[in-house]
């Protein structure tokens, strides 16, 4: 039997389409309504509410917490002082990515971390190895997490607490909503203005109700995971299990990827100036020095005319409505040689807002520069056809409101 999240009584009542999927063993709606597009546009036009409670959650504290995280996480934890959150990853000694996640330090010395897969034992082993005095607790079931995402997110949350207003992008704070203690971060997986809230499980439904009530005049819309995933491709955010897999359970290196291969070399900007002893450091440094990455992860924007053309020539309508796919699609060099394999697409969506099919792709470094042109294989009435696609800097969609100051907006 699948587990249910602390918000289940609410999400079950709202699940009009009656669809459920399993996420890390929990029941979650992929969509609530028949119209996925309506849920997607809640993220871009009004405000959406999403239950992400199935994530694994850890609380890390103790005198050596910082030293431990400096060792276990690949990105410098110094970038996550009290009141901040940080997108990070952790690697094995070969420099292959084990997981990504968001770490927060709300009060000094107490860290919170989300992860897609369990990592309690692994963290404890590392802590023991370096003799760190640190307490690592699995608090997965003690908290529910809600993501409140969209241009009206601040309008909604400010009715319940002042604490969110001063949060900068990736800020984190304690707060109270209707008397219930919560942690609020200015983070999200949509690339839009938004907040994520850690809520004690017993308070989950009251906080859900408070948010829905505050959002009622702002077209707040509960959304499922599919609309979220469409938005996250536009935001250029990778999904573990889709765009990459944990090195931990891979069989061969071909299934493992380094941070640079995932397009995350920006996480190591300061590496030449620091001496952080993090796991995987020497391999990652060597890879960067020798430019030894086998590929990197880039955005692909499909040429709209070409996409239209191949379907129109076959006499059918191009699939553009509610298209989101995690199936592998092959990418070829435009070298004059037929089917000259270059790499593949791991996520594909036809963006309703940007009106272009978009993809996240793995390409060799010589093809990975912005503007580089490749062929993407699509199926047209069950036959493979190539369409032109161009490497684009991600995120594809990056509105100013995502990181805008919300305090000034009100006084303006």
């Amino acid at each position, binding site marked *: 039997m699948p587990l249910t999240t602390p918000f289940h009584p609410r999400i079950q009542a709202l699940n009009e389409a009656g669809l459920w999927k399993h996420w890390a063993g929990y029941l979650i709606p992929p969509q609530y309504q028949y119209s996925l597009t309506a849920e997607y546009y809640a993220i871009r*036009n009004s405000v959406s509410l999403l239950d992400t409670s199935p994530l694994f959650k850890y609380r890390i504290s103790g005198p050596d917490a910082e030293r431990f995280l400096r060792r276990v996480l690949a990105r410098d934890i110094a970038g996550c002082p009290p009141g901040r959150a940080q997108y990070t990853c952790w690697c094995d000694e070969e420099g292959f990515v084990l997981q990504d996640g968001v770490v927060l330090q709300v009060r000094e010395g107490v860290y919170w971390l989300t992860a897609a897969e369990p990592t309690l034992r692994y963290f404890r082993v590392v802590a023991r190895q370096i003799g760190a005095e640190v307490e690592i607790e699995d608090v997965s079931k003690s908290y529910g997490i809600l993501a409140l995402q969209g241009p009206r997110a601040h309008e909604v949350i400010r009715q319940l607490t002042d604490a969110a207003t001063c949060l900068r992008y990736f800020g984190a704070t304690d707060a109270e909503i209707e008397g219930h203690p919560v942690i609020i971060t200015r983070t999200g997986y949509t690339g839009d203005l938004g907040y994520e809230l850690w809520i004690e499980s017993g308070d989950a439904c009251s906080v859900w109700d408070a948010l829905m009530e505050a959002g009622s005049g702002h077209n707040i819309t509960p959304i499922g995971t599919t609309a979220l995933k469409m938005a996250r491709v536009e935001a250029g955010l990778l999904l573990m299990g889709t765009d990459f897999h944990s090195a931990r359970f891979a069989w061969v290196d071909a299934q493992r990827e380094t941070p640079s291969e995932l397009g995350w070399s920006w996480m190591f900007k300061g590496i030449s100036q620091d001496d952080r002893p993090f796991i995987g450091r020497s391999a990652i440094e060597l890879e960067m020095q020798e430019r030894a990455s086998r590929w990197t992860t880039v955005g692909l924007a499909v040429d709209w005319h070409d996409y239209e053309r191949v379907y129109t020539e076959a006499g059918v*309508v191009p699939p553009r*409505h509610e298209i989101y796919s995690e199936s592998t699609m092959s990418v070829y060099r435009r070298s004059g040689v037929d089917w000259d394999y270059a790499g593949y697409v791991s996520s594909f969506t036809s963006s309703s807002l940007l009106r272009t099919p978009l993809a996240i792709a793995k390409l060799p470094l010589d093809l990975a520069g912005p503007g580089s042109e490749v062929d993407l294989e699509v199926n047209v009435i069950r036959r493979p056809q190539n369409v032109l696609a161009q490497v684009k800097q991600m995120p594809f969609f990056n509105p100013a409101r995502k990181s805008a100051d919300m305090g000034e907006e009100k006084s303006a």
Partner: protein
Amino acid sequence: MSSDERYDAIVVGAGHNGLVHACYLAKAGLNTLLLERRDLVGGAAITEEVVPGFKFTTFSYAMSLVRPEIVHDLDLVRHGMMVLPMVKTFQPGLNGEYLLLGSDADANYHEIARHSSADAEAARDLDHIIARLVRALKPWVDRIPPNSLSKDPADIAEMAELRGWFRELDEDVRGMLETFRTKSAAEILDEYFENELVKSLYVSSGIIGSRCSVRDRESGLVWLFHKLGEYDGEPAHWGFHKGGNGGFTQVLARAFEAFGGKVRLNAGVSELLYEDARAHGVKLEDGTLLESDLVVSALDPRQTFLGLVDPGDLPDDLAGRIEDFKFQGTAAKVNFALKDVPSFPGLEGREDIFTGFTNLGPSIDYYMDAWADCEAGRISARPFLDCCIQSTLDPDMAPPGKHVMSCFVMYAPYHLAEGDWDSERDRLGDTVQETIEEFFPGFGELILHREIVTPLDIENLIGLSEGNIFAGELFEDQLFLNRPAPGWNQYRTPIEGYYQCGSGTHPGGCVTGAPGWLAARQVLKDRG
């Protein structure tokens, strides 16, 4: 001539087609001036904050037919284009029954099957054949139409291409095209459906903005015309532009400025300046002279040919055609600011039912009764209303918890048999309100503000002759080869350097942008 300023191109009228056209010219590097008589751009596609916090789509109120090529060519997404999907379609009856359709084909089947399972199946067939037909027509919507009168070999070849295309259509698609050309909407629906409510949902597209009944043959093509659009590539689906249709023209205005174009407001044009059948500028109502060898009118055919130029300078057959061009507006708008969404008995508290079109007109007889009043020169006692409450999807339209309701009204004839539109204005508002009240008891108590837009207002405010929302009827003798006149359907005029790019040219009205786009293609081709 001593002129005040000189431009590469002057576009007259900043409706959406004037804007689209001006964007293409500016993008091509022409120093382009766009002139607008009013103090805001957008023409019929505007959003106005009539009451603080409430945004009214004064005239045009929904989107589907904007050509995707234009969106890409002009990079409109970067300038803020966002079309929200209409989620549901609501067709209430007067006896408690209703149809509520959404985006799931199976759920829609079962909803229609509550009334008739044969109709539920027929709806799938009808929707599919229309989608195929729309797809087949697309290449001809999206190109400069052939000239049926020209003796030029290239034009003759194009007419042959058109006949060849028609011959090669799939037989059932060609048959359906013939059906739409020759039959009324009601007749076509009689072949597909048995249930009145189902027919009613489809039939209203056949009369939108047109002086015809659902049993007149013109209603077939008017219906088909409204299906020529798409949403995310899905044929015949509709949406709302973020911030109303005025949001869309604001996007176009930003794109135009980004291409280096200049807009001048409060700048009505009184006449085209030309000599020896060659345009050289315009004269503004305030007497200002502006010079340009290229002037493009986005106004309707009556103003383009009979207003800005001396009809005596036109060939007789053209002047005659334009004088006979049918405008005969029959539509009005009544817009409301509401405390809450209306309440339908049995579906109380359901905002979602209003997230698309709400079609008030529950039987073929209802539409025919409405038409009888129109023929007699009266406002329909019980008009057909196409209602939209965009604020159920777009929170920018109204204060939290409040709503704006746009009601498109048929019929409200421009030429009234008795009285005039000043005296009939409130009767129009009251009639619409009473009609809504019959479907949604208690509606009157929700009203915070009411805005009435008569056909005469449409003419006076935005210059559409006789208030015709399409800049001329969408009847076969005024479409495609004949819009606005045979031989003059390729955006040129008898005056060199003077072009037309409004909805009175191919493919026609609605927010398509196509006339502006295709006219720009012609202009730029002619410049070489």
